[in-house]
């Protein structure tokens, strides 16, 4: 049997590889690790079993600096995300065996549409999962407060977007209460960092308990780099189930993220979010003012009505008093007339006389007997008289 040294073995492998792959080929893989040294990009590519997720293949790949210089911006501008570990990629590679460094794949090109397709597929799966779990519309269905005044903001204090947002609100003249909960807003740690901040906001309770009316997740400002976190399932599930309405202002130009889909409202920029909140308060303000004007008008109308009514009442009362007094005067006249008519003096003054027997006026001759004494009353005096004879 032929015995050879290691270099010969490696050189034969080198030749075999070169013969097997005379030209470049496209290979699908997941980037497991990635590092850039001296302008060269070194990657560990892997393939996992779709069910068990165990590694079934692994290879080293390198993008030399002269290629990486163009490949990096091309990939990032096409996909809106940096070339990072965790991405599924389609790379044009030339497998090369080096006697000293072993097998390596020289990368000469990348197909961004493959990665985008993978991301899109992943997004669709996440959306389906949220739907299946029945939580996708939970935040959307929360009633939005009429006066969103106490605001929790998750952002980075360095982000220009947050500053724009805060300035915009303070210039509005409305007394918003804003508190910033800091979090990483991009990169692989962003999702966990944002969820951590959300837990702190939730612990403060809702607006009624001195907590917050609305949560805003604002990125804003700077170049669009890695917004992959806003498609993350855990972050989306947390937003969907958050106890108060969530507004996102992630400030991206590409299509909508899952975080936007599950939030109560998605606005393009932090400034747009501020405008929306100011509009809410302005609308409430306007409505209050209108209500005030309506009340004022109604009061004035009522006042006028009452004024008219009262003047009528006054007139009626005057009339009533006049009538009542008149009525009483009339009754008094009648009574007086009756008294005067029955006053014996009135009769006597007309020349009639009254015969009095035992203190009473004599109305029948039968009460008198001859010889009895009677008193005869005249207007100016009286005289005694004796009955001589009676006749009927």
């Amino acid at each position, binding site marked *: 049997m032929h015995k050879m040294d290691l270099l010969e073995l490696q050189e034969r492998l080198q030749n075999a590889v070169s013969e097997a792959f005379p030209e470049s080929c496209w290979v699908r893989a997941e980037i497991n690790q990635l590092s850039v040294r001296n302008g060269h990009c070194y990657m560990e590519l892997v393939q996992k079993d779709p069910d068990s997720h165990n590694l079934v293949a692994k290879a080293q790949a390198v993008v030399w600096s002269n290629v990486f210089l163009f490949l990096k911006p091309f990939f990032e501008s096409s996909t809106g995300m940096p070339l990072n570990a965790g991405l599924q990629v389609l790379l044009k590679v030339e497998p090369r065996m080096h006697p000293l460094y072993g097998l390596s794949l020289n990368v000469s090109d990348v197909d961004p549409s493959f990665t985008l397709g993978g991301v899109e597929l992943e997004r669709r799966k996440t959306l389906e999962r949220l739907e299946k779990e029945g939580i996708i519309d939970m935040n959307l269905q929360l009633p939005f407060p009429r006066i969103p005044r106490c605001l929790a903001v998750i952002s980075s204090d360095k982000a220009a977007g947050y500053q724009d947002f805060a300035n915009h609100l303070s210039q509005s003249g409305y007394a918003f209460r804003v508190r910033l909960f800091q979090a990483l807003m991009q990169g692989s740690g962003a999702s966990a960092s944002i969820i951590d901040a959300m837990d702190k906001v939730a612990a403060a309770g809702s607006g009624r308990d001195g907590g917050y009316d609305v949560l805003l997740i604002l990125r804003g400002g700077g170049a669009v780099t890695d917004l992959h976190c806003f498609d993350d399932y855990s972050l989306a599930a947390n937003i969907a189930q958050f106890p108060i309405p969530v507004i996102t202002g992630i400030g991206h130009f590409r299509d909508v993220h899952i975080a936007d889909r599950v939030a109560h409202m998605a606005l393009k920029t932090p400034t747009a979010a501020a405008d929306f909140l100011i509009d809410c308060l302005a609308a409430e303000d306007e409505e209050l003012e209108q209500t005030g004007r309506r009340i004022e008008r109604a009061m004035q109308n009522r006042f006028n009505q009452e004024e008219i009514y009262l003047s009528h009442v*006054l007139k009626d*009362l*005057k009339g009533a*008093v*006049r009538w009542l*007094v008149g009525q*009483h*005067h009339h009754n*008094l006249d009648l*009574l*007086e007339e*009756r*008294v005067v008519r*029955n*006053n*014996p*003096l009135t009769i006597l003054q007309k020349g009639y006389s*009254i015969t*009095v027997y035992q*203190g*009473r*006026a004599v*109305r029948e001759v039968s009460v008198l007997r001859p010889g009895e004494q009677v008193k005869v*009353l005249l207007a100016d005096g009286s005289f005694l008289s004796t009955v001589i004879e009676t006749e009927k």
Partner: protein
Amino acid sequence: MTRKSPLTYDQARAELDELVKAVEQPNADLSEIAGKVKRAVELVAFCREYLKGLQNDADKILT
């Protein structure tokens, strides 16, 4: 027949009604009738004065 306490209009009217009825009685006691007539005339005057005051007050209040 004279009253010491101030009379109200209603009391005066009630008394007046009684006096008129008494005077109209066919067998009224003649010795009392003159006094009753006098009292009735007084009461009528009192009531008229009262009504006049009432009308004046009402006119003053209801302007």
